[in-house]
């Protein structure tokens, strides 16, 4: 499959500007493939996605229903149900960060005021070796590491906000309990030491805090000597939760903490979700259509909030959305997905100003804009093709206005079409000889520009 084209990582990471160009990306997804087995065959939901997310960068993954954008994001955290899902190939390299040694997380010149720097590779101490792919950064492949290591990353280094806050929050637990879970899972050591408890009694408490205690341990924890210590830990925990909620500009966090999800409005619930996701200062925030269920006025404020928190903490964001007009305002880079593959990747501004792939052009033209004659929206005819055992062809050729004979039998590579890194997977921009086609079968370039 040529579109997967696992280009060497060195040539891939070029961010928004020259400043980011020499940096190592936080996440490099290389040739990710996720399949689902069904009665009718194997559904190639994600079929060779190669994407980088740089430090502090916002990458938008745009696509229609069923294009595989959510599956891509979820497979980064291995959240897809398996079976029927199968991660059929590819890598998702994650290079986590740590508090900056110079300023201990307070923010200094070295870390660009974010308080976090890349963690050096344990094998070579930053010199570059085979383990870290010559990047010198501690690197793990999210798709293959053991489940318990991934558990340490989920919610801690990589956090996710889901589409419907009404469904993602547990209706039976208070907001406090739901945010406490994050701290208990990932910050139990800090909580215990902050409460001023020594390591000895701490061990039991830590287990209790993490809800891992056995039955008799829980009973022991409710006896007087430990009970008072637990209360001290709880007080510290409350402080942390209030802080996390206050960060998302929730008024009166103490009161919100004690309420249940049904008592809050949609916008508030989404703020709670954001507070929960950002509680552990993740390096990457995956936002899966976080504002689709909200009204425009609330949406605008949630987007402001994500942007503001991101700027302050230097978090990278993978923003998944079907709404192109929204992405334009928030993303540094955009990746357009169609039928499990990337159609176009590049700086968001360039994609909107000068879209290369016919699909991106179609999507942009389909959005009603002022002054457009009524009834003359440029609809993309047809529907998304079935993804069961797809043939090697451009996935868009059945609906493409420029489709030619070659499009039905050759898979276009996702190659750079406009330097430095505006890529598009379309034969319009390929030479016949390079893809092994006859020139007369290639789509007509003059009609496209």
């Amino acid at each position, binding site marked *: 499959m040529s579109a997967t084209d696992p280009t060497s990582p060195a040539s891939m990471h070029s961010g928004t500007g020259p400043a980011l160009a020499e940096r190592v990306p936080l996440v490099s997804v290389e040739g990710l493939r996720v399949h689902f087995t069904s009665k009718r065959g194997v559904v190639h939901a994600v079929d060779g996605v190669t994407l980088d997310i740089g430090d502090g960068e916002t990458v938008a993954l745009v696509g229609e229903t069923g294009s595989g954008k959510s599956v891509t994001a979820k497979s980064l955290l291995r959240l897809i149900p398996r079976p029927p899902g199968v991660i059929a190939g590819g890598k998702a390299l994650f290079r986590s960060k740590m508090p900056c040694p110079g300023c201990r997380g307070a923010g200094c010149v070295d870390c660009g005021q974010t308080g976090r720097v890349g963690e050096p590779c344990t094998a070579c101490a930053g010199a570059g070796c085979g383990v870290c792919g010559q990047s010198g950064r501690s690197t793990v492949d999210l798709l293959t590491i053991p489940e318990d290591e991934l558990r340490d990353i989920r919610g801690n280094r990589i956090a996710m906000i889901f589409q419907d806050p009404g469904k993602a929050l547990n209706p039976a637990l208070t907001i406090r309990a739901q945010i406490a879970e994050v701290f208990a899972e990932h910050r139990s050591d800090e909580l215990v030491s902050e409460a001023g408890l020594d390591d000895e009694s701490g061990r039991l408490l830590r287990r209790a805090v993490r809800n891992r205690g056995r039955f008799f341990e829980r009973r022991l924890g409710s006896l007087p000597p430990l009970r008072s210590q637990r209360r001290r830990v709880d007080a510290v925990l409350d402080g942390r939760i209030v802080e996390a909620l206050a960060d998302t500009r929730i008024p009166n966090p103490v009161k919100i903490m004690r309420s249940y999800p049904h008592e809050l409005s949609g916008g508030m619930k989404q703020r709670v979700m954001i507070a929960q996701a950002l509680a552990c200062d993740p390096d990457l925030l995956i936002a899966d259509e976080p504002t689709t269920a909200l009204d*425009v006025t609330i949406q605008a404020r949630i987007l402001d909030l994500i942007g503001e928190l991101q700027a302050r903490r230097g978090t990278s964001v993978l923003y998944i959305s079907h709404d192109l007009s929204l992405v334009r305002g928030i993303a540094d880079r955009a990746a357009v997905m169609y039928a499990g593959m990337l159609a176009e990747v590049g700086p968001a501004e360039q994609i909107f100003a000068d879209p290369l792939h016919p699909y991106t052009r179609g999507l942009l033209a389909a959005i009603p804009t002022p002054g457009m004659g009524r009834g003359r929206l440029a609809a993309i005819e047809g529907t998304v093709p079935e993804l069961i055992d797809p043939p090697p062809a451009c996935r868009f050729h059945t609906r493409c206005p420029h489709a030619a004979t070659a499009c039905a039998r050759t898979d276009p590579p996702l190659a750079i079409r406009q330097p430095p890194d505006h890529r598009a997977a379309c034969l319009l921009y390929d030479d016949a000889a390079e893809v092994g086609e006859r020139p007369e079968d290639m789509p007509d370039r003059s009609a496209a520009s």
Partner: protein
Amino acid sequence: MTALGVTSTAGPSSQVADYVISVRGVRKHFPIKEGVLQRVTGHVRAVDDVSFDVPRGKTVGLVGESGCGKSTLGRVISGLTDATEGGVYFRLSHAAKDRLDELLAIPEAERSAAEGRELAEIDRAHRIDALGKDRWREYRRNCQVVFQDAFASLNPRHLVKDIIGRPLRIHHEASGTQLTERIVDLLESVGLGSQHLYRFPHQFSGGQRQRISIARAVALDPEFIVLDEPTSALDVSVQAQILNLLHDLQEQRGLTYLFISHDLNVVEHMSDRIIVMYLGQIAETGPSEQIFAAARHPYTEALLEANPAVEGGARAVTRLKGSVPDPARPPQGCRFHTRCPVVTSQCGWEVDDAVTEAELRDSGLDGLSGVSRQSAFSADLTFETEAQAAAFVAQLQAQETPEPLAAALTELRQTGTDVSVRFQPVVPVRLERVGPDQLSACLLHTGQQPAAEAVAR
């Protein structure tokens, strides 16, 4: 009998009515029931005194945030639920509409017997909840609805043929092979074909299902279709197909649409006139271009600013604070004043606002034990301790309290554990003309002086 009487007896059968639908003072209140006895403890005012006209052959767009009552209004108009108050009139001529407005302007008690009879006459001929059986039937076939969720609105156990053929059968339009032919025609007019006749809804994609819904809606050749968020469950490329289809059908069949949506881009594209609703009332209404080019109401402005656009530069942004208030207790004065960026002290501040304001602070409302409320603008709050009462007063006098709220406070006095809070009474803001054909309900543009009026009373 006046000239009007003649037109009204011609009634719904006449094809020359200038207004397909006229809504007059419609309210829809849903009771809130509590306790074992299900006693009614309040009402959710989903739609609260809304009036507008839908001219023949035009598209009227209805926009607003979720919970503003736009879908409820659509249901009332299509006759799916009854209005609590007010009426929906079908096929009024210019003259009849003007006369109706004149008659409705007279308070019921002052109406003469002749005027009362005339009104009843209009009601019988045009008002949908007073129509006779035959006219009601005719209204039902001339007013159709396309719902948001095309999956939920198509019976999963019926074939496409049954779904689209049902209205034709109910109204005895066709049967047998003729029916099948009509159905195929309809399918073709919405871009489907005879191969889809014997399939179930689940075999179609979202866009195709919406096409089936539309085919069903136009089956009886209606005059008017309520489109309740017809594209919000669809992707942009499919949305464009459906919007184009709706436009083509309107051209071919001379349809009139009420287009309900929360997507401003779509509404702007589709509508001739736009109605912006907020909390059950109309905030602003006018021709589409005018609303988008020169919105007068701060709420419309905020909506437009929050709306992401594919083209154009970044806009100066003012974000609305807070969320939509509880429609069971809508704010006094202007309903938007709790979130308005340009709010003044005259906009309807009330005791609830003071309490909400204090609630946002950490300890503003601690120890509140009782409230005795004389009106929305005047109440005595009782706290458990004097210190807590003092804290409440201090919160309201603090810097963070919005200036207009502080200015509207006429009295904030603490006596022991009691705090009395008084505001200047204000009457609800009315929709008033702010430009040619443009109405807005905002004090800033209409020059209403409700405070002075209220004080005079």
